[in-house]
């Protein structure tokens, strides 16, 4: 896959996968690393076709309609709904969300 133009093939190195998984906060099953690396290589080689077009003069497009931001009046419109929101939370105490100790 991918090496259609005789250009280099993208291959994700295992340390790169480790870094991406760290950034994305996903635990990677070590049994699955090869399979995953292979899938990602395939996908990246596929999207690499984008290189075939010269876009130096093209402005990136983020929003298809290129609209501009509407602004909201500065008003307090929200009321306290802590009880409803924390009813669906995995762990709370004293109105706080609980997480393993945050160390700085």
């Amino acid at each position, binding site marked *: *896959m991918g090496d259609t133009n005789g250009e280099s093939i993208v291959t*994700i190195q295992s340390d*790169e*996968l480790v*870094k*991406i*998984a760290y*950034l*994305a*906060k*996903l*635990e*990677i*099953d070590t049994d699955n690393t090869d399979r*995953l690396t292979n*899938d*990602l290589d*395939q*996908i*990246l080689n*596929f*999207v*690499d*076709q*984008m*290189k*075939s*077009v010269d*876009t130096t003069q*093209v*402005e*990136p*497009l*983020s*929003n*298809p*309609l290129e*609209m501009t*931001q*509407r602004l*909201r009046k500065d008003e307090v419109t929200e009321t306290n*709904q802590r009880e*409803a*929101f924390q*009813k*669906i*939370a*995995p*762990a709370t105490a004293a109105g706080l*969300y609980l*997480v*393993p*100790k*945050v160390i700085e």
Partner: protein
Amino acid sequence: MLPESVSELLKGLESKSFSSEEITRAYLDKIKQQNDSLNCFITVTEEQALEAAKASDQRRANGTSGPLDGIPVAHKDLFCTTGTTTTCASRMLENFIPPYESTVTRKFAEAGAISLGKTNMDEFAMGSSNENSYYGPVKNPWNLEYVPGGSSGGSASAVAAGLCAAATGTDTGGSIRQPAAFCGITGLKPTYGRVSRLGMIAFASSLDQGGPMARTAEDTAILLNVMAGHDPKDSTSSTHPVEDYTASLNQDLSGTRIGLPKEYFSGNLNADTGKSLEAAIKVYESLGATVEEISLPHTELSVPAYYVIAPAEASANLSRFDGVRYGHRCDSPKDLEDLYRRSRAEGFGAEVQRRILVGTYALSAGYFDAYYRQAQKIRRLIKEDFVRAFDHIDAILCPTTPGAAFKIGSKSDDPVQMYLEDIFTVPTSLAGLPAIALPCGELDGLPVGMQLIGNYFNESKLLNLAHRFQSETDWHQRRPQI
């Protein structure tokens, strides 16, 4: 025998031929009989539906009914519904009961529609076959060994099998149109910004768009009337005026210029699908439309660009699922890092994780320009292709998918082959244009669909074109035998 379309059901309710409670019970019975084999619904809200139906009958008796009053519908399970589990077909949200309502489902409720429940989908709307669901694959009612398409596969299968009168879907790169094509129903992806995204769990924010899935173009128009409109709580929602989409369904097509993009009728297209499209083109010509070849030269780059932009946006959109405020949390995390990594690895399925990783990679230092920025530039080129085309044509006619539905399991091992299923739907998504998919043929007992693409906010033209086609043909009336 009850009628099948929303428009006929509304007439029957109005003339008191039957009550909303009666039809709601009929649909609930059908769901009971068939959902085990089709797996369309993740949640069926029987009690609430019956209560709502009774209330609807009361309103009709009082003469205060809304535009969809009493019509049983189903919502894709990524529209947040107060008090009803909203899973996104993910283990991550298995027990998530939102304390708030999406704008789309609120509008349906305000119009009097009865929600039968929440439909199955590809997890977080990522997929083209509905095989990526924590709740198992959805089956195509035309042949249970085949996929219904995705990601709105549950909605498409439910509408096709008659388990609801109509349904909501969302389309990011074809997720309404492709399953509509595979299941032989009519599905519209409106212009980006036409339907509010508030309360619709995001996959890729600059592409996601909710839309109607129904049996006919007319029903689609009735539903769009309810769904469309500006939402001040969605910054990307358009203030463009909303039309009555049912008003122009029967307009004369004389002089309508239809473009056929040559890139869509080449290599990727299955020959039999091509024949069905040729027949459809003839129908339009007979209705007075003129047909010409056009070129959308950057079509081939749309899938690569899409599979960078959508995962990049998704990688950030899905960061909020961290096991802290809602959703799946792993057992006894040993530290914060462990909480994040295990909760997310356990909560997300394989395809979702794959896309998060691809998106993270495409945005990371050293790759951003080559992937993300390049994809956005190509996005502009693709949009410009369409803008040029719409200078001299009114609509584009093309296939929705390269072929008919494929067998469950036949493509699930090859992500890229699966991505290529989206070749005819992602260009319009990237450009933000409206497009409608509707059946125009059959192949080995499976429906074949065509796609009509319109200019920005020109949904009424598309619905007019689709409705006129359906007035001349009966593809949309064919039903799977189950």
